[in-house]
């Protein structure tokens, strides 16, 4: 009896597990097939920003549903890095840092592209739930920390690390889409996550995730590793270079006799 019960429970569990991915199927009659022009970026000495083409198509079994708007949203998110945010206040006539928060790790890069105006592409509730236009960590602050989190978004947007670009995805025949995402010149190493969302009437129908590997290569890799693996040797090497350059310039200039 016990064994039978266990067997039935196991069977039920298996059913539940297999059913989970199948569940959205009736809704997701449309699925995304997406690709990247390059899945890895090598940062070498001459790296000066790079452009990634994100493209794809909507796969469907049935004809396109008429009258319901299909939209595509793409987000690219850089590695999460811990930050400290400080606020200045005027105390006795001078501006000093009076308050700070450590919100934990926030994305070093965050770009959003849409195929239509934002309010048309996704409903606010769905956006909030999926954390699409703004990473969730920058939204879930309390009364004290929210101004700091807003400041992160404001400053990073001004510096070009965060962006929301509406109407920058070309969507053809409600099937093919493509967009270019510009990675900044101050690129941080790590895994960049690309998420592609397909929405209908502001609701997410399907989404896929891709990863761009960003790594230093060649000389950059060598110097970075040396600085972290052999810090003392690296420091002394920097000094040696400085000494040689200082002495060399002086020797060269005295040879010139000007």
């Amino acid at each position, binding site marked *: 009896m016990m064994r039978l019960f266990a067997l039935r429970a196991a069977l039920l569990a298996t059913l539940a597990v297999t059913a989970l991915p199948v569940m959205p199927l009736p809704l997701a009659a449309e699925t995304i097939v997406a690709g990247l022009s390059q899945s890895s970026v090598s940062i070498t000495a001459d790296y000066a920003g790079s452009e990634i083409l994100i493209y794809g198509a909507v796969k469907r079994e049935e004809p396109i549903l008429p009258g319901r708007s299909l939209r595509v949203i793409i987000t690219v998110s850089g590695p999460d890095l811990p930050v400290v945010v400080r606020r200045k206040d005027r105390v006795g006539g001078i501006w000093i840092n009076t308050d700070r928060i450590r919100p934990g790790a926030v994305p070093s890069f965050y770009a959003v592209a849409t195929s239509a105006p934002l309010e048309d592409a996704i409903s606010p509730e769905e956006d909030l739930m999926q954390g699409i236009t703004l990473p969730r960590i920058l939204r879930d602050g309390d009364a004290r920390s929210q101004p700091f989190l807003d400041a992160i978004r404001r400053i990073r947007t001004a510096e070009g690390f965060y962006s929301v670009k509406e109407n920058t995805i070309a969507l053809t025949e409600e099937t093919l889409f493509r967009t270019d995402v510009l990675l900044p010149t101050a690129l941080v190493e790590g895994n960049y996550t690309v998420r592609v969302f397909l929405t209908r009437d502001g609701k997410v129908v399907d989404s896929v995730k891709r990863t761009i590997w960003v790594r230093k290569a060649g000389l950059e890799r060598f*110097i970075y590793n040396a600085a972290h693996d052999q810090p003392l040797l690296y420091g002394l090497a*920097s000094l040696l*270079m400085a000494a040689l350059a200082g002495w060399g310039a002086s020797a060269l200039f005295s040879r010139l006799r000007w």
Partner: protein
Amino acid sequence: MQLYLPIAEVSVNAYALIGIGGLVGFLSGLFGVGGGFLITPLLFFIGVPPGVAVATGANQVVASSISGVMAQLKRKAVDFRMGAVLLIGGLFGSGIGIWVFARLTALGQVDLFVQLAYVMFLGVVGAMMMQESLRSMLRARRAGGVVIRRAHVHTWVHGMPFKMKFRASGLYISVLPPLAIGAFVGFLSAVMGVGGGFIMVPAMIYLLGMPTKVVIGTSLFQIIFTTAFTTVMHAVASQTVDIMLALLLIVGGVIGAQFGARFGVRLKAEQLRILLAALVLLVCFKVAMDLVLTPAEFYSIMPGRLP
């Protein structure tokens, strides 16, 4: 030409870096100051993170100081004995300074302390120098070009024990004042994160009575060691020395230092001091303004550690 810096993790224009190095090197060769006060804000301006800017700036100052000292050495304008005494004092001072810095960091107000220290010391030192050099220049002009030349002025400094001969400076004074000045500047440089040439140069001129021409070489001589120490400390403790950034700054810096040293020879001692005083006051004014003016953005983001 864009170049990606491996430690700073930013792509910058290589020529801009050589230019910054050259400008700072020029001032270094001219005045005997390291230039750490200038290089950090300039690098920050082109997008290099502050931590990397401070550490790599120190490395660049090593190179331009060596270049400057070599140029001064040819004119025998370096007092090695005085430099060594100042350095010994400096080591004690920076030991205490590093401890105070750690305490202030724990209290969370280290930035404010550094800025206030900047304004106070640069303001006082700059104003005093400016007043003195203007007066001596006026005096020289009124005397119709005939300047009364005195080796140095006798002050209370000359009545202390443990006297020592500093031949290159033409001084026979107690070692205590140079030790104390070295310790004080070492303390300040550890707390403020600059080489301290700014305070060292006027102190050598006015407190020790050293001739201006010898001061520059001697100041640079001791800056080599303090900045070398700083560079290695940063490389080991925080891995913030960017050797590629340093290389470009150094290329500009060592050449600039040579030009600065040549240019300095053509100037009179008073003119040199007036220019240095003006520069000190300018930096002081800038830091003071940053404290007083309402900033455009009240928030600032710095890299942190995971909680």
